[in-house]
């Protein structure tokens, strides 16, 4: 595992913690920063956040496990969140899901053998006018077809 956070970032968070009236409000920022660095939030990340914020570990853990965009398990280098809500469902979302699973050779909640992609379902991404849609990393892709998915995955594989 790479380092959880570089010293500079830790110092910046400690300074912020000292400057704000309610340090606890920084917990999501901190967990997201750790995830950005490591790819997910390991136990040591939860412990580090608790230490910086002066909170019991359990109070960070109950926040970390609540949100679905904070990963408490290892994930692939890219996480694909495929929308399975009503608008995407109404415009071929199930076929898109089938194609993605087949193409990647994994089911939802699984990571490809080469560690490139983790496939997860997500609720509505707010791309309902461009359904069906998915988010890879922080980027949203709409109007998905089988051909477009193949194209996006190929392009993503080149960058990771």
């Amino acid at each position: 595992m790479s380092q959880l956070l570089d010293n500079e970032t830790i110092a910046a968070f400690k300074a912020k913690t000292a400057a704000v009236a309610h340090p606890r409000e920084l917990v999501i920022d901190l967990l997201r920063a750790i995830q950005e660095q490591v790819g997910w939030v390991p136990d040591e990340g939860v412990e580090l956040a608790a230490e910086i914020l002066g909170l019991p570990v359990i109070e960070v853990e109950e926040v970390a496990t609540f949100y679905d965009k904070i990963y408490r398990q290892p994930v692939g280098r890219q996480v694909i969140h495929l929308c399975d809500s009503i608008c995407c469902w109404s415009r071929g979302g199930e076929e898109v899901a089938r194609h993605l699973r087949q193409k990647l050779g994994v089911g939802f909640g699984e990571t490809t053998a080469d560690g490139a992609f983790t496939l997860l379902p997500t609720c509505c991404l707010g791309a309902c006018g461009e359904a069906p849609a998915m988010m890879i990393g922080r980027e949203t892709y709409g109007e998905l077809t089988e051909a477009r998915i193949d194209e996006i995955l190929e392009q993503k594989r080149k960058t990771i």
Partner: protein
Amino acid sequence: MTAYPQLLFKNRHLGATVSLDDYRKSGGYEGLAKALRELSPAEVRETVKASGLRGRGGAGFPTGTKWTFFPSDQPGEKYLVCNGDEMEPGTYKDRVLLETDPHQLIEGMVIAAYAMQIPVGYIFIRYAYARATAALERALAEAKAAGLLGANILDSGFAFELHLHGSAGRYICGEETALLNGLEGKRPNPRSKPPFPAVRGLFGKPTTVNNVETLASVPHILTGGADWFKGLAATEEGSGTKLFGLSGHLKKTPCLELPIGVSLREVVEEHGGGVWKGRRFKACLPGGASTPYLRAEHLDTSLDFGPLEQVGSRLGTAGVTVFDETTCMVAATLNLSRFFARESCGWCTPCRDGLPYVCWLLEKIEAGQGTLDDIDNLRGQKHNIDGRSFCALAMGAMGPVDGLLRLFEEELIDHVKRGKCPVR
């Protein structure tokens, strides 16, 4: 196509995220200047109240009333929170608004803060809105640099500090008290009400929570006046313009600004280009995933709070999702119920245990293994869940179930009698 006055989307033709310069060229921050220089906080509250603006986040509570309930004169810590956790399936208007013209939200928030004498604000934005977040970050930096945020705004002596909070995904965060817990860095379960946020909100202090579109409408009310804003509605009782996000089985699925109260028929046939693939209209969700379905006989209903309640539904977020004649309404309701079951925070029993049970019943019926007792049971679950959950999530989940039972009972019975889905 009918051309309507554009407020929130008036700068959309520019194509890119509107900069501070372009926003000011189009009259931006004039509403704020007017509020700070010509009106007392109480006069701003009264103006918003007189405009008839109702909350655009789904509940439709009159904004001015909320503001006048707020203990504006109480000294000390108070907070203004913008709810940008837009996660109701079928809803994407706030994203388009923020990506298009984010200064409207900032200006609206400073005006709101002045009206309620609030020194600190937060914008709570959902994880998936990376582009909207970037647009807001830039706009916030521009506003700070131009003296439109911070100390002594426009030399008025009024100070307002505004923070951006990026969330990490979960529909329940859109519930205002869950959102406050999330902002505080706590597990975002909803809180019990009362006390309402106006009394004990963020960090235990008086707090007003408003939706993105609601706050972004405020500058226009200040510049155009309450009567003008109210008169923009298509109906006598309505007020203002409204962003509609179209989705589902339409030829075109844009997000657009229309007078509140336009007919569902106009939205579907004119702005949506009609039902796709030459098919017929079967049903729609008029305002997001938690609003009961409408059918073809409701096409002439005005899309406004009152008229939609009269036909058993709600305006909600005005995300209109259309279903064509080939759609199985049991399957659609199952999809919606699964969403709510998964997004339940698990705090209260009717929601945590009731929603999975509803899903199980719908799965059984959709698979052709249901009995007439299962349909009765579904009705019983709706009765058991509605009004008995800790927050509005489970009640929202019962919206489409209610629509299914009332408007598509025959289709449910057909599933049971044929022992299979008659549509799929």
